[in-house]
């Protein structure tokens, strides 16, 4: 450190207890705190997961185990590249080290990319960390029923508004001179009106009267939910084979419907899933930032310490994922 006061300052000597640089010690201590952070998250997950009366399996939540496994492989590969970068830096091969760091950065980016893809597929099915964004309800109760009714009301109101607009356009056209062009336009409008009317009828038929019935029983509402978003008990799936995966719900058939549905334990599943993978992804992101900073430096032997520290951090991120993958995807 420079001395701003200008008078000579002696360089003090120390007697370190451990034969490692301060930076590396700091990193290990920091990782200890990180371990406790993730231990708390995983501990909470375990309590909630095994304390829950019901817990949806991965397939119910559109979680593809294969993608998770692929992501694990990506992270493992990135761990190898970063350790090779360190190797190169220690051998003073700066350009090779930079190459490996770049590879690590790309692999980390790929991991995040896959994560984003997974998140998007959850969102597209209406699975968000929690209500009110999430369209999942815990049980087929009055709140679920009213949410369905509210959603249908909005949908129908939109269709009705569109049809009213079409009707007023048609009235305008009928009032004017009936040229061939106008005739064709009126026919067009009629067709569109018919499509909309058919669609509404189709929705009404598909959803059925249950949604409109204030006194619907829990059982009927559960059946409705299954029509909207088919869920299978693990045992059912076992008995009837994997084919059940393919069954299509209303939300899949008509993506514009976005109707609420019931998955017991679904919201707690989503909460823990998004929290744990989210905090992990933040750590990945922090690692990527560190890699970018490294790429601007000449990674020769003098900087091997920095590469080692960033690498240690990155391995820790890998380590966390090694536990998250089975806990979230395979439990």
């Amino acid at each position, binding site marked *: 450190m420079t001395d701003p006061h200008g008078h000579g300052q002696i360089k003090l000597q120390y007697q370190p207890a451990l034969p490692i640089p301060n930076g590396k010690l700091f990193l290990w201590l920091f990782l200890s705190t990180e371990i*406790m952070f993730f231990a708390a998250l995983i501990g909470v997950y*375990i309590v909630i997961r095994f304390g829950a009366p019901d817990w949806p399996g991965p397939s119910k939540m559109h979680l593809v185990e294969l993608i998770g496994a692929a992501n694990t492989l990506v992270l493992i590969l990135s761990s190898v590249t970063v350790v090779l970068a360190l190797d190169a830096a220690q051998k*003073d091969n700066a350009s090779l080290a930079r190459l490996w760091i770049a590879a690590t950065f790309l692999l980390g980016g790929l991991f995040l990319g896959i994560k984003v893809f997974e998140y998007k597929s959850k969102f597209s099915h209406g699975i968000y960390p929690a209500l009110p964004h999430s369209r999942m309800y815990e049980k087929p109760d009055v709140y679920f029923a009213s949410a369905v009714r509210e959603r249908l009301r909005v949908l129908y109101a939109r269709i009705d508004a569109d049809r009213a607009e079409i009707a007023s356009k048609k009235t305008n056209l009928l009032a004017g001179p009936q040229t061939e062009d106008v005739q064709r336009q009126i026919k067009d409008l009629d067709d569109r009106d018919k499509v909309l009317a058919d669609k509404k009828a189709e929705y009404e038929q598909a959803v059925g009267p249950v949604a409109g019935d204030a006194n619907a029983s829990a059982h009927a509402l559960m059946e409705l939910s299954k029509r909207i978003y088919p869920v299978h008990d693990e045992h059912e*799936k076992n008995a009837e084979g994997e084919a059940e995966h393919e069954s299509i719900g209303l939300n899949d058939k008509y993506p514009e419907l976005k109707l609420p549905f019931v998955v017991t334990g679904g919201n707690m599943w989503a909460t823990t899933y998004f929290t744990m993978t989210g905090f992990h992804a933040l750590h990945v992101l922090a690692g990527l930032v560190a890699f970018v900073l490294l790429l601007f430096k000449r990674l020769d032997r003098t900087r091997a310490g920095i590469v080692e520290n960033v690498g240690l951090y990155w391995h820790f991120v890998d380590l966390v994922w090694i536990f998250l993958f089975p806990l979230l995807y*395979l439990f």
Partner: protein
Amino acid sequence: MTEPHDTHGAGEHAHAGHGTTKQYLAVCAALMILTFVSFFTFRLLHNTQVQMTWAVMMAVSCVKALLVMLFFMHLKWEASWKYVLTIPATIMAIFLMIALIPDIKWRFETIAGGRTPSEERKVHMGYEHEPGTPAETEQGGGH
């Protein structure tokens, strides 16, 4: 940029405290195989022997974590300080998770009052008929 450090023997063999590229690749291969082991355990056994798959997967994860720590994080080659830093952290982390587990037991025994979780859920579904719900508490003292 010049290469001032070339004289320091850049091409020398790896540090005594580090593995060789070959070792790293072998560890990488082992990690990948282990990943597939847990994946196929899930695919083949999860529907019939749930507890078994959980045990297998946790064991596999621990082995993987150990491999990463030993080889990638170079703990295999470090001096004995590694024990001072890693063992307390590991013990504390495991202890925290274990310490939270009685909560699960508590929930099953006391909340559910001996009922199975699915029976408990039925009680919740009929919740509207218990006191403290909006229908019955209009005259309540809350503001």
